[in-house]
């Protein structure tokens, strides 16, 4: 296994073990296996980026880390405490140490931005409303949103603003670990970079550990201390591990594994042939026209790349 990036010096008050441990995690929905034997140790203060193509189980892994999805087998431990062993009340209390930034921000439609960001503070603290307002204002400053959005409903904001409001809400309880689910998906390149900068800024908070699930290589290059790459279970051999890469982003770029290099370079390559086979299998007979079109497009793209 490739060596991980040099670790930050450990503070005296940091726990000795990993902050989060995922141990032989299996998740299955009915007959569909989504995660197979995933094991990850996450050190405090580090940023882990989980890469992988759509449908490979990245979001399921992220939701398993906070106990939103119960594993079929295996365990997730936060500071050595198993999430599976906690009752609802203890799990709810533990979740106050997490921040979760959802793909679509998941702000509550019926509440204003002020009420959305203040929600965890009102739920878990007895802070006076005036102080909550000032905390919300400072969180807005941190994510670069104007105060004028406070009275607006989420539907009145742009996608980038909603993501930043979602990040502000995730940071409201000063979490130890922040989980980001596709933080730059659906945003323009400039706003994507703004979000990447915010992830870096959040990392500067003392003791904050981050897990970023993405398929955006730009985000991975910018924020990752460590990268793991998942591969869809249905395309693995029975004995193959689902984590096909674990290392630094530099090592990722040097990998000779075609599954990894294709993803890093954004080339469809042999995947198109697989799609063709899947299509034919599903239809019971080859569907030449659509598959040929796909293959032609891939060939054109490869030739164009070669010319360049």
């Amino acid at each position: 296994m490739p060596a991980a990036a040099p670790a930050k010096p450990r503070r005296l008050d940091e726990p000795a073990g990993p902050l989060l441990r995922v141990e032989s995690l299996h998740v299955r929905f009915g007959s569909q296996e989504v995660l197979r034997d995933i094991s990850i140790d996450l050190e405090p203060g580090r940023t882990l980026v989980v890469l992988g193509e759509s449908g490979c189980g990245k979001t399921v892994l992220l939701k398993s880390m906070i106990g939103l999805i119960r594993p079929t087998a295996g365990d997730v431990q936060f500071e050595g405490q198993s999430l599976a062993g906690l009752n609802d009340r203890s799990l709810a209390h533990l979740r106050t140490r997490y921040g979760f930034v959802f793909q679509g921000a998941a702000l509550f439609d019926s509440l204003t931005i002020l009420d959305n960001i203040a929600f965890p503070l009102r739920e878990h603290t007895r802070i006076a409303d005036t102080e909550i307002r000032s905390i919300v204002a400072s969180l807005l400053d941190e994510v670069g949103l104007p105060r004028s959005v406070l009275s607006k409903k989420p539907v009145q904001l742009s996608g980038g603003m909603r993501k930043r409001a979602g990040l502000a809400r995730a940071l409201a309880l000063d979490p130890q670990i922040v989980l980001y689910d596709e933080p730059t998906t659906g945003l323009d390149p400039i706003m994507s970079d703004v979000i990447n900068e915010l992830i870096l800024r959040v990392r500067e908070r003392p003791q904050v550990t981050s897990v970023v699930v993405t398929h955006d290589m730009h985000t991975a290059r910018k924020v990752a201390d460590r990268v793991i790459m998942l591969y869809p279970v249905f395309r693995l051999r029975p004995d193959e591990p689902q984590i096909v890469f674990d290392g630094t982003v530099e090592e990722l770029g040097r990998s000779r594994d075609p599954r990894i290099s294709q993803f890093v370079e954004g080339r469809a390559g042999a995947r198109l042939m697989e799609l063709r086979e899947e299509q034919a299998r599903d239809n019971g007979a080859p569907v030449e026209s659509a598959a040929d079109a796909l293959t032609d497009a891939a060939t054109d793209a490869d030739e164009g790349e070669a010319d360049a």
Partner: protein
Amino acid sequence: MAARSSAHSPTGMTGWFANQVANLGQFAMDWVAGVGDVAVFAIQTIGWIFARRQRRDVLLPNFYQIGVMSLPVVALTGLFIGMVLAVQSYAQFKALGLQTRLGSVINLSLVRELGPVLAATMLAGRVGSAMAAELGTMRVTEQIDALESMGANPIYYLVVPRFLGCLILIPSLTVMADFMGVLGGYFYSHVLLGIDYHHYWANSREYVDVFDFLLGIFKTLFFGAAIALVSCHHGFHCEPGAEGVGRAATNAFVHSFVLILILDLFLGIWLNNVHDFFRPEGPRKLL
């Protein structure tokens, strides 16, 4: 592969019969699992009513949506049902020369059956499907996951206020449906059919008593609870996409309505027994 599987599976009439039995078994298992799931959901909801003090800022908007916003449609339904009852019953009663008894049959039907069932049906249609669609959208857009990720319980925040709203406000809506139905029946009978108002009300008073009215109101508590639980359960278990949300809203109404009818039948049988217990002389004869 196909040949090999067909060699192992029964064919012909036996195969068809085996498949039907298997399908029936699967349906029964799914049904039992579904009922069990709703029962657990109901127990959790009732548990959260007592586990934590309810927040006024969460309750009131739900109460407004369920109660105040449903009032016009429930009132309108009641008004027209009262008039329709008068239209449909008049010819039969007139043939027997008993037009003045029209008030008793209209008002008895209204307060015992039609008022409660129609108020519940309107609530299921207007509020139940909206609740399923709203919670379904929250599920699809991960807002329910967001609540859980912040250590908040979605049943406490989303289901309990809706459950309490339906439970507490459906009796008031039924009173409104009853009142408007009585008014509609009287308007049509007296103003348009010319039935003497004194006899109309005297007969109504004689045959409809407080027990009939309370019986109707009592039933609505079960209807309200059923609407809220079934609709919220459909919203919570909504499948992804616009189609999933649409299906959740439709199923919420259909299943609530079927449950209202089933509850109405069994509550009707049980409450008649209760009535007989308190009034052994039996009901007064209308005709």
